[in-house]
């Protein structure tokens, strides 16, 4: 794995991917710090906070679980919302299974842990299969490091910078815009994107958090017709 990453670091074709990954990871790292702070102040121990980032590794679910607990909710209600938010990673897994090669089982099990919003989007943004795979692994490795280091810092520090003051909450949608831009050149992808966005917007006020994104996946059904 580290050897493969080192090879990717020397590949000039992948330089833009590295640059983009490191920017994204920096933003993710700041959010991880605020997650660490939030989790500890919601009553989690430092160990629980860090284990959550290491094992759960899907930011939206973690934030949701911590905020429910912090607001005095039960473990069951914290779990319900967080699981709904995590379900979309299953859909990303379906998409990534067509892009990642078969490989060894151990590789697949590691790839599974890193199958989240950012890695799927970065991978889909690449022009060919080779760069698509490389972008998945580079993004996965750098985000995993930044997310966990940031969580530890936040959990220990208890006090940190406010991500909102730097507009970092908009760094994610801005990045996603750039990532899907190349996909929109293809007519069917553009239609799926438009339909997915409309479904999501329409459902946000009426369904629990997490459901709109899941339902947006129905937009892919336009692929049924040739």
């Amino acid at each position, binding site marked *: 794995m580290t050897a493969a990453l080192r090879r990717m670091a020397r590949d000039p074709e992948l330089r833009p991917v590295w640059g983009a990954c490191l920017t994204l990871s920096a933003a993710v790292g700041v959010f991880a710090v605020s997650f660490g702070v939030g989790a500890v102040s919601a009553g989690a121990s430092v160990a629980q906070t860090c284990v959550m980032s290491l094992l759960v590794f899907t930011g939206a679910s973690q934030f949701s679980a911590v905020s429910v607990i912090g607001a005095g909710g039960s473990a069951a209600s914290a779990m319900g919302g967080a699981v709904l938010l995590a379900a979309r990673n299953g859909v990303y897994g379906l998409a990534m299974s067509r892009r990642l090669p078969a490989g060894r089982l151990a590789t697949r099990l590691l790839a599974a842990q890193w199958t989240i919003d950012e890695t799927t989007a970065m991978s889909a943004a690449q022009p060919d299969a080779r760069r698509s795979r490389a972008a998945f692994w580079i993004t996965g490795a750098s985000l995993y490091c930044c997310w966990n280091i940031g969580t530890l810092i936040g959990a220990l520090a208890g006090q940190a910078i406010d991500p909102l003051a730097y507009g970092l909450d908009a760094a994610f949608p801005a990045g996603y815009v750039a990532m899907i831009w190349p996909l929109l050149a293809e007519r069917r992808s553009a239609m799926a994107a438009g339909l997915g966005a409309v479904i999501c917007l329409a459902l946000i*006020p009426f369904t629990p958090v997490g459901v709109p994104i899941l339902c947006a996946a129905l*937009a892919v059904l336009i692929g049924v017709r040739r």
Partner: protein
Amino acid sequence: MTWGLVLGLAAFAYAFKVIGLVVVGDRRIPPALDRCLMLIPAALVAALVVKDTFSSGQSLVLDARAAGVAAAVVAAWRRAPLLVVIVLGAAVTAGVRRLG
């Protein structure tokens, strides 16, 4: 916060990821289904963009993020590198937020 919640959530989260990745795997699937799966990133990432831009919990809101993401759309359309798009989106949002 209990260990049960931490580990239970970890198990659910990993189960979703693994099932997605392994259930289809490299199996031969009908071309129509393959076409649908290839559209997943476009549909879901577009949905993430509108959610992260226009929502706060279950309410739809229009705030500084919309300005930042609008700037990002222009930058992406002008073929700016991803790094520039991200920094610009965050900077414009922070600027508008400070003014507002």
